[in-house]
């Protein structure tokens, strides 16, 4: 009798015990609810009642209505725009924090500064944009006083633009963090080596720095995407109900107890997120990079 099989058996038992809490938790509160939502989306909904008789009515209604499909496209459009703006604002910030700041302490301090807005509640952060962007808001007052504009800019608040501005500010830090982390892990000698071999700054950036930071960009993009696709509060508070995202539809439907329709929208949103995340994960092999 050798002792190896016993040890292996004990190890596989340990593995099972360590995995069990996570698996049970995920099954109860993730897999099961998702299956429930898919199931409920096929229920029959009448004005005051809902029954479990299977029907495609809610699905047909979703794809036939301009309001619902419109919300789907608005969600995708706003997601793409916010993804682009958070990247455009976030990458240079991350480049500064992660690569150009030489002291580790200072770069940690700067990252903490980026997180300071999170010390207040989500709703306050969103609502704080109203006195900034409004017709008599801070931006308009300053621009009027400086004589740059004669009439207040009204497009700043209660438009898609205000939603994009708000979301960019709130989610930018989720882009900055992972990118700055990847950039800070780049060995400075590599950059010096590239310079010593005669490569200019542009070449070094595109051939060395950017490829090495790509896993951070992907992780940041996944964070931002998941949060923006599920958004409803920012669009509710800053668009004056003019911008309806899938999240807003779910809130309204649940509010009026239209469970079947809410489930259809929920399934659509989950599918979109699944496609987006799968797409991002194809860009880099995160398991290898992190």
């Amino acid at each position, binding site marked *: 009798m050798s002792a190896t099989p016993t040890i292996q058996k004990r190890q596989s038992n340990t593995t099972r015990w360590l995995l069990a809490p996570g698996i049970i938790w995920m099954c109860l509160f993730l897999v099961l609810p998702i299956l429930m939502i898919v199931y409920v989306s096929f229920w029959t909904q009448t004005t005051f009642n809902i029954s479990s008789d299977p029907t495609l009515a809610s699905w047909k209604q979703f794809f036939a209505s301009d309001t619902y499909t419109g919300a789907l496209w608005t969600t995708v459009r706003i997601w793409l725009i916010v993804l682009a703006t958070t990247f455009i604002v976030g990458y240079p910030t991350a480049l500064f924090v992660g690569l150009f700041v030489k002291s580790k302490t200072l770069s940690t301090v700067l990252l903490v500064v980026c997180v300071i807005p999170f010390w207040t509640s989500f709703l306050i952060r969103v609502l704080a944009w109203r006195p900034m962007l409004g017709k008599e808001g801070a931006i308009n007052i300053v621009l009027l006083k400086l004589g740059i504009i004669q009439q207040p800019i009204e497009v700043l608040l209660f438009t898609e633009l205000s939603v994009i501005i708000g979301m960019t500010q709130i989610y930018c830090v989720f882009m900055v963090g992972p990118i700055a982390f990847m950039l800070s892990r780049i060995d400075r000698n590599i950059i*010096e080596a590239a*310079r*010593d*071999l*005669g*490569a200019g700054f542009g070449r070094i950036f595109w*051939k060395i720095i950017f*490829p090495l930071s790509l896993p951070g960009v992907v992780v940041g993009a996944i964070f931002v995407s998941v949060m923006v696709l599920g958004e409803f509060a920012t669009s509710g508070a800053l668009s004056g109900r003019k911008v309806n995202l899938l999240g807003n539809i779910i809130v309204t439907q649940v509010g009026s107890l239209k469970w079947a329709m809410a489930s259809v929208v929920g399934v659509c949103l989950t599918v979109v997120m699944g496609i987006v995340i799968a797409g991002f994960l194809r860009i880099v092999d995160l398991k290898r990079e992190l």
Partner: protein
Amino acid sequence: MDTAVFRLDGVTKRYGDLVALDNATLEAGANEYISFLGPSGSGKTTLLRVIAGFEAPEAGRVHFQGRDITNVPAHERGIGFVFQNFALFPHLTVVQNVGFGLTHGKSGLTPAQVEQRALEMIELVGLSGMEGRGVDQISGGQRQRVALARTLTMQPKLVLLDEPLGALDANLRGRMRNELRAIRERLGVTFVHVTGSETEALAMGDRVVVLDRGRIIQIGAPGQVYDHPATPDVAHYLNRFNLFEGKLSGGQFTGPFGTVAVPSAVKGDRDVYAVRYDRMRAVALDAAPTGPKIRATFIASEYLGSAVMNFFDAGDGHVIEMEHHLSLGAPQEFEPRQDYLLTWNPEQAIVFGREVR
């Protein structure tokens, strides 16, 4: 005429109050292998980085191929630099790493020419067949070769190596030592090699430059440095000498071993009596050796293959080392914790003294 490949004139570099380099002056000829030896913090890496152009000196000039390059940026100097941790591009393959400088610099070569040059260099460093591997799929010694090949494809006239063998295991280090020398001889360029290991410095350099606290304290051929260390510090860094503090006056050195006549001494900043490990002899307490003697307790011995190192404690934690080459016959056997008399021929000692002019 300036025949030197590079010349340093009074180079000084400070980091705040710390003087990393103090008035360093040095000249290197073409086709030479120079090693910089010094303890960590002696400024040897700083000196290398100043030559490479990664650091700007506060004072002094750097000349390269007859041109003052003190203010020329690193990439325009035409000096190759091999980093201590190799600094390979982790997302590129071996051939992409080696060809990087030709592809992205100002070589003006076509991709096919770049690939051909890169492949030639890969063959030179003995990595044929590895071109397409990622740099995380090869061993430490192979990475070292990639780093060297990447620098050599740029055809520099001077290659700076920052502790190139430090990241390798002992076995590999010995092999790479020979390889580095062979590659250098084939290309006929000047290598400057920074190391903290005295055996590496002595084995590889045509000339050894010893640094201490930012100052160059000796420049010479390995044999000359070994046989005639210029200062007590050099003797200390060579790690081949037992050093005794004491007092030199009137041709007599008074140390822990008593007073010995000193036929000749070297000017030093302090009075030190140095005896090479392999010049020491140990005898029983009742023997009466003629030369100087010091009583010490045997601690342990180390078998090194070609020699045996014996360690003695002369009190106060002062360890005296004695090397016995096995080619001279079987080693003496010593009893642990027994006292012996250590003695040597005073004519073979090197004495440093303040009173010497």
